């Protein structure tokens, strides 16, 4: 026993060093899975409060930019609305009109229903390998894990950690997960990020026979947790890989992550039902 105590006494520093490093490794390992721990993220109460204080100061400096971006978004939405109205008029002019009785419930099957909640970005990073954004909304405001986050112009990310008043969002600038994406022609692929450049995303593994023009838009699909048809970005470069006849599309991100100021957290009411069904089929398969 005496020898043991002497041993501990002699190598105390080394043992302490090893113990602390093991604690760190455990923390890293737990956060690197998609279900991390909540307490050690920027969504916890104290850190959130400090970030909110800073944002309250910086808010006023960016009001002008924010106004402009909101105006632009309004114009875009107005355009979309007017397009819808226009096509409606065209239908009226056509010779065949078939009215659907309003009581008939089959005329609108809602397989997805979305609630949009606004949130302010109080912390943002673009330089790390996995970038996180902190929002000033938490489960008190109805935010839950795995909700989609979009900005006025395009996709932002997915809610990872939620506390009472804050939530942290894993932005699409990460190397952990890809996002399901769709070209305007309907070709489906996945979009990922290669670290280093916060403006450029890569859509990989598109067959070579699919013709893609520079400037084509890339949207989200209804397969992922994002609502469908949200703009991801525009193609600005193509690279054909001779080896397997696939092409890489380089996409300029629609969301400007450098000056993100507000975001919408999107809740899909039907998501839980879809998830349960999909999970039950996968468990059956494995059995």
């Amino acid at each position: 026993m005496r020898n043991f105590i002497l041993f501990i006494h002699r190598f105390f520093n080394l043992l302490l060093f090893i113990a602390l490093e093991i604690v760190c490794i455990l923390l890293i390992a737990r956060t690197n899975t998609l279900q991390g721990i909540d307490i050690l993220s920027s969504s916890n109460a104290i850190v959130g409060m400090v970030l909110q204080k800073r944002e309250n100061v910086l808010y006023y400096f960016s009001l002008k930019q924010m106004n402009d971006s909101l105006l632009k978004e309004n114009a875009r939405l107005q355009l979309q609305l007017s397009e819808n109205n226009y096509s409606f008029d065209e239908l009226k002019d056509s010779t065949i009109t078939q009215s659907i009785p309003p009581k008939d419930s089959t005329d609108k099957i809602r397989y997805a229903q979305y609630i949009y909640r606004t949130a302010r970005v109080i912390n943002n990073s673009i330089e790390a390998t996995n970038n996180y954004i902190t929002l000033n909304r938490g489960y008190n405001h109805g935010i839950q894990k795995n909700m989609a986050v979009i900005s006025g112009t395009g996709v932002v990310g997915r809610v990872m950690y939620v506390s009472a008043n804050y939530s942290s969002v894993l932005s699409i600038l990460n190397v952990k997960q890809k996002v399901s994406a769709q070209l305007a022609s309907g070709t489906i692929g996945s979009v990922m990020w290669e670290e280093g450049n916060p403006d450029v995303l890569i859509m990989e593994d598109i067959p070579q026979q699919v013709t893609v023009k520079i400037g084509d838009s890339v949207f989200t699909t209804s397969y992922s947790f994002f609502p469908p048809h949200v703009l991801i970005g525009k193609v600005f470069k193509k690279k054909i890989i001779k080896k397997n006849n696939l092409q890489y599309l380089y996409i300029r991100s629609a969301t400007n992550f450098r000056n993100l100021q507000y975001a919408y957290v999107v809740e899909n009411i039907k998501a839980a039902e879809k998830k349960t069904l999909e999970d039950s089929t996968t468990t059956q398969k494995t059995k």
Partner: protein
Amino acid sequence: MHTNVKQFIKFCLFILIQTQVLDKIMIRWWTEPSGFPIFVPFLYPLFILLLPLSTPVWLLLFVGFTTGLSVDLFNNTAGMHAFACVLMAYLRTNVLNALLPKNLSEYGQQVPGVKVMGWMPFLTYSAFLLLILHLTFFTLEIWSFSNIGYLLLKVLASTITSMLLVVGYLLLFTNSSSIRNK
């Protein structure tokens, strides 16, 4: 004021400057080629570098762990900064022993600095430890050697920028702190 209180205030200042100011500054040396890494400058390791010379190793380790974890909290990188900081704190004593002529316990409450060590030894000391810190942190963060050029470039660029900050700190605070110590 008591030294511990002073150190605590210094700790809070370093963490706040790092997380509230420097983490907002994203630096890229060149915009082209587009693969050149973006990084934020790290100043908080300087707190560990500037702890008094006679600080025992176990205290250094705990301070390193706390400092790293505080920065981690703000950046959602739980454990990565802490890992790098603990490693740096552990190596600090060995590096100082190699660079200084006297035994470390003889220096008492003096902090490592230009007055005590001279310019070259202090720069070697901080550059070596900062390099270790950045190398560990970015290896942990990127977690793959598939793009080793990018990793090394990021470590190098980040270390040099942090060293510039350290030199800036020294030029700003060396004289006034040495007067206060007397």
